[in-house]
């Protein structure tokens, strides 16, 4: 595998479709187009061309757009063929491409990888792009576009610039102590900004939970005594039979889940084994898994078919709400008094399901009025940001300029691991542009 290979792949979705887009990237791109479609179109202009095999046999006609490198997605010469999206058409074109020397089918993610290696995207942007492609809900799309479009990188780079400036002021004082042009207390000017920066990073880290909900979905666990109707509720919400429902307690042995889209958010519903003491090996494993899922839940729906059975002894996070749901009210409705549960429903009649959905929506994050979704959506970002913030906090707490400088260097390194390294030359550039140094 040589990177000098030219790669191609069907870049649009499943066939058949009205239009299919085939992408080609690599040094042989121009040559391949010339041979498939005749004269090379003007860069970045769509041109209608007939696509033929090397033997002159017509395959299809379609739009050809040529993007010469480095001004292309991958940074290499690129081309997009927009052709008719029939299976036979696309396969014939892909076969024709495979017939060229030095061309091969792209591996998964290879176009993005080349874009990254050629410096067209930074790591945050690549990650954002991957999320954008897999985004299923509106909020996931908004979050991913913020990342892949560089909005988030711009935020981090802004922070990195402030840190660089602060470090430069300290380094100026340390390395040019005997210079007249550098006031002895120049480094004092930066600490209020560093305190502010630490606050901004912390506030940003606090958004990580929200980003996780957007990216991975709000995790709702349906829990309750065996035979409380958990699986029936899952099936009702999924609008299909996912779980096996019987009257026998302990039917569900594994954790089942469905993904729902609710008000633009992804919601993951987990049906768990009823929690009870049992010697049955498979059921015990199911209960262990249920507890694990409960441990990560954002919201618990605690089900019961009769009043007084809302027993909840599982450890969950402090702010994880537990909603008490009375079930099977078509049969047991008369047993319940108002206030004995938060919601009352019957999956059989559908009563109360709409109320439940409204209640769930109320637990989704409130993004009204938010224009930016720049928030750390990956653990890698959160880890680096936490390290940066901790180092900043130490720099504000310790004594001695050399030790403070060391903490800022660590903060800068941590931030650099997200977007890119800050070099000592950057510090010197700042120093020499702001101060007249040199005896």
């Amino acid at each position, binding site marked *: 595998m040589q990177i000098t290979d030219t790669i191609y792949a069907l870049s649009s979705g499943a066939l058949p479709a009205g239009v299919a887009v085939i992408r080609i990237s690599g040094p042989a791109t121009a040559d391949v187009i010339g041979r498939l479609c005749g004269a090379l179109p003007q860069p970045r202009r769509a041109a209608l061309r007939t696509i033929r095999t090397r033997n002159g046999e017509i395959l299809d006609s379609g739009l050809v757009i040529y993007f010469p490198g480095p001004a292309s997605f991958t940074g290499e010469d690129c081309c997009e063929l927009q052709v008719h999206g029939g299976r036979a058409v696309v396969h014939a074109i892909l076969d024709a491409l495979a017939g060229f020397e030095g061309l091969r089918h792209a591996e998964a993610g290879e176009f993005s990888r080349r874009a990254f290696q050629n410096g067209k995207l930074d790591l945050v942007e690549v990650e954002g792009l991957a999320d954008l492609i897999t985004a299923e809900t509106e909020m996931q799309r908004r979050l991913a576009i913020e990342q892949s479009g560089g909005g988030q990188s711009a935020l981090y780079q802004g922070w990195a610039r402030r840190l660089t400036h602060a470090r430069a002021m300290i*380094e100026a*004082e340390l390395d040019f102590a005997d210079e*007249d042009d550098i006031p002895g207390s120049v480094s004092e000017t930066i600490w209020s900004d560093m305190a502010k920066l630490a606050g901004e990073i912390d506030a940003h880290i606090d958004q990580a939970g929200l980003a996780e909900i957007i990216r991975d979905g709000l995790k709702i666990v349906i829990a309750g005594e065996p035979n409380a109707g958990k699986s029936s509720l899952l099936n009702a919400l999924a609008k299909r039979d996912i779980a096996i429902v019987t009257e026998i307690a302990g039917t569900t042995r594994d954790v089942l889940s469905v993904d729902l889209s609710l008000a633009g958010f992804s919601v993951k519903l987990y049906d768990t084994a009823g929690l009870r003491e049992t010697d049955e090996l498979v059921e015990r494993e199911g209960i262990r898994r249920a507890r694990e899922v409960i441990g990560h839940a954002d919201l618990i729906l605690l089900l019961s078919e009769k009043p007084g059975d809302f027993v909840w002894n599982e450890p969950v996070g402090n702010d994880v709400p537990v909603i008490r749901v009375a079930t099977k009210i078509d049969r047991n409705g008369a047993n319940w008094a108002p206030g004995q549960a938060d919601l009352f429903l019957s999956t059989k009649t559908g009563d109360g399901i709409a109320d439940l959905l409204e209640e769930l929506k109320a637990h989704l994050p409130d993004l009204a009025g938010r224009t930016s979704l720049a928030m750390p959506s990956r653990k890698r970002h959160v880890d680096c940001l936490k390290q940066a913030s901790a180092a900043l906090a130490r720099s504000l707490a310790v004594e001695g300029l050399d030790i403070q400088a060391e903490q800022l260097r660590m903060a800068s390194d941590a931030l650099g691991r997200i977007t890119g390294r800050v070099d000592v030359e950057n510090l010197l550039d700042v120093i020499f542009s702001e101060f007249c140094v040199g*005896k």
Partner: protein
Amino acid sequence: MTSYDVIVIGGGHAGCEAASAAARLGARTALVTHKKETIGVMSCNPAIGGLGKGHLVREIDALDGLMGRVADAAGIQFRLLNRRKGPAVRGPRTQADRRLYREAMQREIDAIENLDVIEGDAFDLLTDDETVAGVIMKDGRVFRAAAVVLTTGTFLKGLIHVGDRKIPAGRVGEAPSVGLSETLCRFGLRLGRLKTGTPARLDGRTIDWDRVGRQGPDEDPVPFSFMTDTILNRQIECGVTRTTDATHKIIADNIHRSAMYSGQIEGVGPRYCPSIEDKIVRFGERDGHQIFLEPEGLDDDTIYPNGISTSLPEDVQAAFIRTIPGLESVAILQPGYAIEYDHVDPRELQLSLSVRKMPGLFLAGQINGTTGYEEAGAQGLVAGLNAALAAMGREPFVFSRTDSYIGVMIDDLTSRGITEPYRMFTSRAEYRLSLRADNADMRLTPAGIELGCVGEERRTRFGSWKGAYEEGRTLLRSLSITPNEGARHGLKLNQDGQRRTAFDILAFPDQTIEGLRPLWPQLEAIDPRVSGALQIDAAYAVYMERQAADIAGIRREESATIPDDFDYSDLPGLSNELKQKLAQQRPRNLAQAMKVDGMTPAAVSLLLSWLRRQERRAQRVAGQAAQ
């Protein structure tokens, strides 16, 4: 024909250290210089050390080099910079008496038994095939050597500029070397052109000293060398004055007559050592620029006005200097000038400072694009040691970014090249808290002893010092106290029930060994020579631990060496652009490769796995050969 193990060309700061280092390792060494009396001349400002630079001097000294001892013998105004800012960023510095410095250096050189000084003009290199094999002198003499160290400073196609006057010269009154420059070109070395400058020299007897401020020396001068007990020279004051609006006006009005601004100079000058023209053009709005009036010696009336290096014509120099308070009727002994010179792109060098394309040749000092006596001396040491090791068929001795400023400098030079004359700053060292001026001996002397470049006298002295240090540290770590007991003795400790050792307690602000004596009378046993070092080490201990993991990582990356002839075109999965960059920059190890622009984590792991595969293959081949 006379033959040597090592020949060093050039008797400046790099040359002297190189010759001494090679000789200390036992190589039969010759030092070739134009004139014996110019050995150890300080051609620019009369000072040694400073921030970053002082660290280099301490490291040269730790390996038994000359610069620290010579500076101690010549120092006339010792000042420890950043005294109040933490030991890691303290930089020892001294003004030096030019004559005393030169004489002390010449005494050191004379005293080395297996070192000959050869006077004359080294015209060209003697080569056998593609290997450097000696030196050809202008007068026809030929000296053979297994290794040659070239330390020609600013002499490679040196060109002095004063206004529109151009004088081919290496230093004022000394001819440049033209032949060597051409030989280096012939071997295909990439050369660049740099510029530096120096101010006019003034007659101190014509300065109105009452009109200028003063800067005094430290009361307790701290010597550079581990071997120096006390500074004997009388310590002097420097004058301090400033440029005025009138000065700025004259310079601005005549800026077109400056060689720097008339387009005559192509070389790039350093940003941190700008000419007065640069200062006025870039920072003209400042209400004045400081000038230090530095005496060049105890019984020398020459004054070095630090801060006004210039390439303006002589008449303009005289005019602007006389607008400066105190210098109204000063006599100018020698005009300032700019000098342009060739340097070799240091990416042509290996970490041993040997030239990749010219086996047997080592380069050190300004020829590698650096500036400063200390940077030159440190490279001289590295080149001299490695030239001797090469001549003896021993493995090269390579410094690391994690053990020394020397390592930082050589790594920077060989991996990134330069865009301006390279000067050391403490901010260049990632592990600044570990690489302190005060612990240079502990960092490097043991390695020097093992290598064989440390003399008997230092070995003994260091051994006794280290013994006392370790005893003291053991004692400090063996004594401990609970927070409650501490409180009874007025120590504010976290009430967490943790016992803390005396060593731990020394890390708190304002704690000293002396201050802990009422608590632990046995601390009296600590040798006063080492108490300062123990205190500093205790204060940094927690940071050292944190850096230790980083350092171990870098060492691992540094030890993953990349063969010189590594073919990146074979390496699958790298972009062509990156392959080209790697092939051009030729990182010596993985740590350097990681700093190549555009290197991604994915590319690093590719490179690493490829290196591992080659290593295993080599081991298999070696294993089969052994069978």
